[in-house]
């Protein structure tokens, strides 16, 4: 299913005020109240426009600090743009940061419940069993999350999001996590979702890791789009 746009971004600009080290209460209060920061504002993104159609997978590349994570957070609605607009058509599943929001003191099952709730899914017994099977963590069901390796930890938010019924997936670097088997399973699941009409945009330093999945490459440089097109035609970094 292709055609309708799942993600539409127009003239997106985001400027951060670089923070000086915390000083004292009065300086901090002044900054908070009047919004004046002593350092030069950092333009993280400038005049970004693109759209992603249903059934399209986009790899977002660029050097560290080029604005990839900021763009994904703006698309997820976590940050607000300084200018421009984001329109998302469909339920969104953000996967931003390795094991973000994973609670070390909770069991694997309880963490699945938390991530299901964050993805607006009512986690019944069948759903829990399904995610345990998909993540390969059935044997760790009652183990505390802190006992898992980093590769195992990332499977829980990843698979919970991929089985959330979302139509828009925003993924930040997480495809580079986990072992080869897990990555293959995750990419296979993403390919299924894409075929069903989902839009996928993922930030990566290595678009080749999901070569069969990616239709399009967007490269950011200093907060601007420097390339937007098929991966094969992209200039070599």
């Amino acid at each position, binding site marked *: 299913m292709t055609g309708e746009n799942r993600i539409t971004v127009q003239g997106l600009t985001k400027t951060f005020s670089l923070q000086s080290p915390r000083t*004292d209460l009065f300086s901090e209060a002044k900054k908070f109240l009047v919004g004046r920061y002593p350092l030069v504002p950092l333009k993280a993104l400038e005049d970004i426009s693109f759209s992603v159609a249903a059934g399209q997978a986009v790899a977002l590349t660029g050097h560290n600090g080029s604005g990839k994570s900021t763009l994904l957070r703006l698309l997820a609605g976590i*940050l607000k743009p300084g200018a421009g607009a984001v329109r998302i058509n469909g339920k969104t599943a953000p996967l931003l*940061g390795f094991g973000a*929001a994973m609670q070390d*003191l909770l069991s694997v099952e309880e963490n699945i*419940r938390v991530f*299901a709730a*964050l993805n*607006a899914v*009512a986690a019944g017994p069948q759903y829990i069993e399904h995610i345990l099977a998909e993540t390969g963590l059935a044997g760790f069901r009652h183990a505390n999350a802190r006992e898992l390796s980093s590769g195992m930890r990332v499977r829980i938010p990843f698979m919970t999001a991929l089985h959330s019924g979302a139509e828009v997936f925003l993924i930040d670097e997480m495809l580079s996590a986990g072992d080869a088997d897990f990555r293959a399973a995750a990419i296979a699941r993403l390919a299924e979702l894409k075929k069903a009409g989902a839009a996928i945009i993922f930030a990566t330093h290595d678009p080749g890791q999901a070569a069969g999945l990616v239709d399009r490459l967007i490269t950011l440089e200093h907060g601007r789009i420097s390339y937007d097109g098929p991966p094969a035609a992209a200039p070599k970094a």
Partner: protein
Amino acid sequence: MTRTYSNTLLVLARAEWKMRQQSTFLGFLWTLLNPALLFLVLYTLFIKWIGKLQPDYAVFLIAGIIEWNYFSSATTYALSTLLRRRSLVANYPVAPELPVLACVLTSAFSHYLELASLFAVLTLFAGGPHLNWLLLVPLELSLLALICGVSFFVSVLYVFFLDIERIYAILMSAAFFLTPVFYPLSTIGAGRRWLPELNPLTHAIEALRAMAIPGYSFTPGGLAFLAAAGLAAAAAGTIFIRKTSARVAERL
């Protein structure tokens, strides 16, 4: 409140409760030990003095401590919530008040267990239940709203000013003495009584005492004041935390 919102809130609150209890050996017992120790100290110190002025001083004191401890511990714990849950706030588009609400709900749950213990003891040894125990519903809802409002403010401010933790601790120490937790309002001169009466917590404590101590004088206007303060705090706090959510996410 949508179903998704309430489901997320309940799941986060349950997770918060489990983490809170599992991170210490004594778990839930800690929440009972703190007010129990405070009661023991204050009762030993003041029974001979204030006990003469106030009949049923033990119940009087317990009611004061339970309500005070709820407000104090809930808001103090909520203060650091956004920083403690930064990975959640910075990576998921959750309503910014949700982690704070979840945190407050765990404190509320502990508080309700304390209240249940109090009323169970009252039923066994002092007769009951009484019709005025129904006042517990508007009282606790108003207090919960007040705690949520204050928690929203302090949790956001703490993201920007770490000093808030120290300032809040000092303010709470002062507020403890400005709230009639261990003394009756009548011990304060009429000219200065307006000070504790402006404190919504005073009315929460007095309302609970009216339910727990037969014949305890209580004006319904106090409960109305608490309800108005609770609603105002919750509304202002919600607007504040939502207006600042993007700046909080940036800062985190």
